[in-house]
């Protein structure tokens, strides 16, 4: 059975992840996972490196981000299309511009404004999110790290998902590629909270389960909910966008009737050169011609 991890985190989530994107891509290749989504906190900083490493490893790299919301929750968003990527970046830009570094949160209204092309995973599904994203772009997220409270929460999430009519999806929310990197994450947690290992207490990880698990392990963990595993594959297939499809486009400049952008530029350059170079000698003419040809 194939499983795609849709909620991974790298060290580009500052002090909240303890492996580099290359580790994650490597883990995918080792564990025969065809694709993975890197969702760093409030940004897509890790995506270029993840994209490159995944390309080398033959893994499909999905792009997205965990967006902090003003209601105190965090919404993992996956970019399904180029429009989704654009919306994600605009939302991040807007929330970062109005707050100090490292802070800033999006409002639910902004989430709604930029929701097109994005798929939202959530551990707290409700009607409001359903309104924002619709039945096809909202999934109830389940995680199993061998914890009683988490499982109790999962069972309520499954019920909520059934009543809302949205799919459930399993993730392991890895913050590190292999179990040994949990220790580094604990140290990062201490730095983030300005405490020592001895005084950090329950801020630290409960166990070392948040690593990249094999599809077989995940299938075993969710043996009672096979659709949660199947849905990861289904969602992965809907994520068209990768950094290869960036498709950068320059802004258009308004031109008068009967002119193209190029002919207008040529005319303006010619007029300017005549003012600048008196006389308008051959060497200058050649240089301008070369520059224009380059564009």
């Amino acid at each position, binding site marked *: 059975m194939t499983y795609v991890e849709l909620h991974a985190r790298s060290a580009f989530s500052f002090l909240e992840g303890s492996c580099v994107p290359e580790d994650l891509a490597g883990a995918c290749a080792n564990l025969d996972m065809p694709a993975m989504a890197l969702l760093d906190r409030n940004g897509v900083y890790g995506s270029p490196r993840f994209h490159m490493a995944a390309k080398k490893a033959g893994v499909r790299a999905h792009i997205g981000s965990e967006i902090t919301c003003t209601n105190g929750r965090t919404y993992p968003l996956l970019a399904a299309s180029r429009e989704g990527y654009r919306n994600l970046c605009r939302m991040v830009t807007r929330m970062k511009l109005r707050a100090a570094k490292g802070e800033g949160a999006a409002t639910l209204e902004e989430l709604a404004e930029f929701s097109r092309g994005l798929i939202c995973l959530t551990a707290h599904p409700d009607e409001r999110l359903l309104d924002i994203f619709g039945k096809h772009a909202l999934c109830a997220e389940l995680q199993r*790290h*061998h914890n009683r409270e988490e499982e109790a929460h999962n069972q309520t999430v499954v019920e909520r998902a059934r009543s809302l009519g949205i799919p459930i999806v399993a993730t392991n929310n890895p913050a590190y590629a292999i179990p040994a990197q949990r220790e580094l994450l604990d140290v990062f947690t201490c730095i983030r909270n300005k405490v020592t290992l001895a*005084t950090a*207490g*329950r801020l*630290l990880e*409960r*166990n*070392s389960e948040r690593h990249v698990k094999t599809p077989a392990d995940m299938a075993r963990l969710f043996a009672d909910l096979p659709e949660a595993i199947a849905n990861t594959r289904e969602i992965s297939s809907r994520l068209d966008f990768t950094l290869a499809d960036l498709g950068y486009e320059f802004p258009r400049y308004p031109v008068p009737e009967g002119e193209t952008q190029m002919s207008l530029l040529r005319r303006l350059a010619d007029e300017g050169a005549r003012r600048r170079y008196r006389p308008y000698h051959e060497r200058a003419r050649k240089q301008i011609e070369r520059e224009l040809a380059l564009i």
Partner: protein
Amino acid sequence: MYACLHGPGNLTALAFEFSPTVEATAPDTVTFDVAGLDRLFGLPQDVAGAIARRARETGVKASLALAGNPDAAICAARGFPGVSLIPHGDEGKFLATLPLGLLSPTPQLLETLERWGIRRFHEMASLPPLGIAERLGPEGLRLRELARGEGDRKLLPLVDALQFEDEIELDYPVELLEPLAFLLARLINGLATRLATRGLATDELRLRLKLETGGTHERSLRLPVPSLDTKAFLKLLQLDLEANPPAAPIVHLRMGVNPVKPQAAQSGLFVPVAPEPVKLELTLARIQAFVGEGRVGIPDLLDSHRPDAFRIQKGTATLVKPRLKNATVPFMALRIFRPRRAARVALASGMPSFVMADGVRGKVLDLAGPWRTSGDWWTLDPWQRDEWDIALSDGALYRIYCEQAGWFVEGSYD
């Protein structure tokens, strides 16, 4: 009116019981202002009687003198044994027969006077002042004044003399705790009275025992609130010494208390029931005597994922806010087996199917788990365990766990 005590013993403490203005005139002499005490006790002889009585009670063997000026009182206390009461204006007459050496003049001056045949107060007192001034200078004049009992000066009061300490030197070593209790009681009562006269109480008792072997045995007791309950102090000390007996017979006791303001606790009508702090301390000491040290106190959760992480606090802890407050449905409690019980567990497809331990035995009817925790990886004592909640065929619900050392039953849900 001034009083003077002259003799061995802790005179300063005694003096402070009667007056805030106390002068340590010499190591064996203490002078203090008793003006106004007559309003409390009556006539000057009653004041003297009260001081003498208190001196007897505290075991101070000193001579006492009361006079209108400090120097006359000092001379009388040094010169006459027992209690002397100098009537106002009769100082010169009263002191007349005392030897001049009592005033401790310089040796040269004393020698000169000796050659002149002047040996007693009245002889000095009757010399003409002008002649003295010419021949002996200001020092001679001062001596004459003192001899006439006319010296007048202010006391140099002790400022920071609030040392609440007392000691008893023993004639022969005490080994048993029972006779020691009498001595402790004497010290405690003395200190408590001194605290009480100053409107103070104590929250700490320090006891230092010198042993026959030359070593010392020190104990200190801290109380949750300041108190003056001498009976409780004594009992607490006794319990403490029973639990931590000195290694050898005792030859010397020294006790100190920490003087603090007593707690102004007002018990209101609607204040919820709570044990009286000092009494509780005593109860706890008694219980600790048979259940062992560190096994009585207020439980306090430790901030850790480690299972059953707690410590026991002595004394009153800060109030811990309850984590869950849904009081309508009771929460399932876990009874912990301490020490943990090693178990033999049969597995079926990786999950417990039969459990056997001391007092626990049965087939697993239903189970939930594994619930996994690990941590403290940077210490010498890391842990990692998988917990299971199981229903056993013996009719009970248990929490069992597996760690490196094997399987254990942690406790039963009840």
